[in-house]
């Protein structure tokens, strides 16, 4: 039986990994921070010196860490990510003690233009005939998840959102606006269920 978790070490080949790739070299991780497979980096294209910075005592399990060339994901201490998806073209920041439950998605961009003509041009630039350097401009707005936030199963956090310290995102919520500290939000679009008491 292969070990479930391995230390997150830049450039490492994980023993017994079912996905046969080494971890990226442009990542940083603290002590006691672990990951299950290099598959988490299948869509990691960060080109800057660091595209993923992770603190201490973090668990990353079956989580899609998709980073575009100029992007960076930052994760604080004692975070736990399970079967989640972080898709980052600019900056996604998680504080400490953040829990991201299964099926949750966090994105900092729409990844394609809203305008129909620009979107059509984007499909061409993205195709095998096209030139990705000629994609239209696509806005990216940083996502910040502050300390002690819990994100429920199948919840979605969209671009530009700041989730205040200690907030709880109910399962299935689609968060399009900032969430105040300590609040609980639920629904699509997410609405305030409980004010923060902090």
């Amino acid at each position, binding site marked *: 039986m292969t070990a479930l978790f391995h230390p997150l070490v830049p450039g490492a080949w994980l023993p017994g990994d079912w996905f046969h790739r080494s971890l990226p070299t442009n990542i940083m991780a603290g002590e006691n921070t672990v990951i299950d497979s290099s598959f988490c980096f299948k869509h990691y294209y960060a080109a800057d010196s660091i595209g993923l910075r992770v603190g201490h*005592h973090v668990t990353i399990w079956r989580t899609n860490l998709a980073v575009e060339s100029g992007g960076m994901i930052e994760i604080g201490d*004692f*975070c736990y990510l399970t*079967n989640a998806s972080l898709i980052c073209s600019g900056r996604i920041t998680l504080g400490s*003690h953040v*829990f991201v439950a299964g099926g949750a998605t966090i994105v900092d961009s729409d990844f394609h233009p809203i305008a129909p003509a620009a979107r059509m041009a984007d499909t061409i630039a993205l195709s095998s005939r096209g030139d990705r350097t000629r994609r239209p401009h696509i806005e990216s707005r940083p996502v910040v998840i502050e300390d002690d936030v819990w994100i*429920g199963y*199948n919840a979605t956090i969209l671009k530009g959102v700041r989730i205040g310290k200690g907030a709880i995102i109910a*399962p299935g919520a689609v968060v399009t606006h900032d969430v105040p500290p300590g609040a609980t939000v639920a*629904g699509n679009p997410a609405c305030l269920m409980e004010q923060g008491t902090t």
Partner: protein
Amino acid sequence: MNGASLQLAHDWYPGQLPANIEVGEDVYIDTSYGFSGFFSEENPGLVLGDGAGAYSLTTFLVQPTGRVSIGSYSCLNGTFVICSDHISIGAHCLLSWGVVLTDTWLSPGSTAASRRSILRAAADDSLRRLPCFSEPRPVTLEDNVWVGFNAVILPGVTLGQGCIVGCHTIVHEDVPPYAVVVGNPARVVRFLDPNETTRSA
């Protein structure tokens, strides 16, 4: 399986099925990948009835005290079963991809301090097992239930016989037999005729 761990033929994942699962005849299990978070110490920790199937990335995240039972001919296709105590799925159920069934989530009014202690305990565990988030409340799916993709069934919920839960629906409360529920939070939009056999859409 039924006493000895079993290596599935043609499994792409280098794992095994746990010893404490009980499978009926003609059960199909795609891969042991879905069992890497199966820590049940109950015997059996999982029962799969005759003709039941755990397809694709169906995943069982089961705590040492967790027990899951799945009735005959039920089909789980990329479903997540997250169990600390008891999750019971009847016969002839259909569960889609991205569906989460869970018997624990945060109780209202959970404190940041209590949540931190959960994460710190997990970081100290070599298998990174998470302690219970709250007192578990069993989840029951009666027979002939259909749950659409990415729906979430929360602790304490019973889905009545023959009901349908639409895709992306978030279910906090019991669903009556033969109801159709959709939305977040779930609401009943109609009732099905239990004896109708012809309607296809």
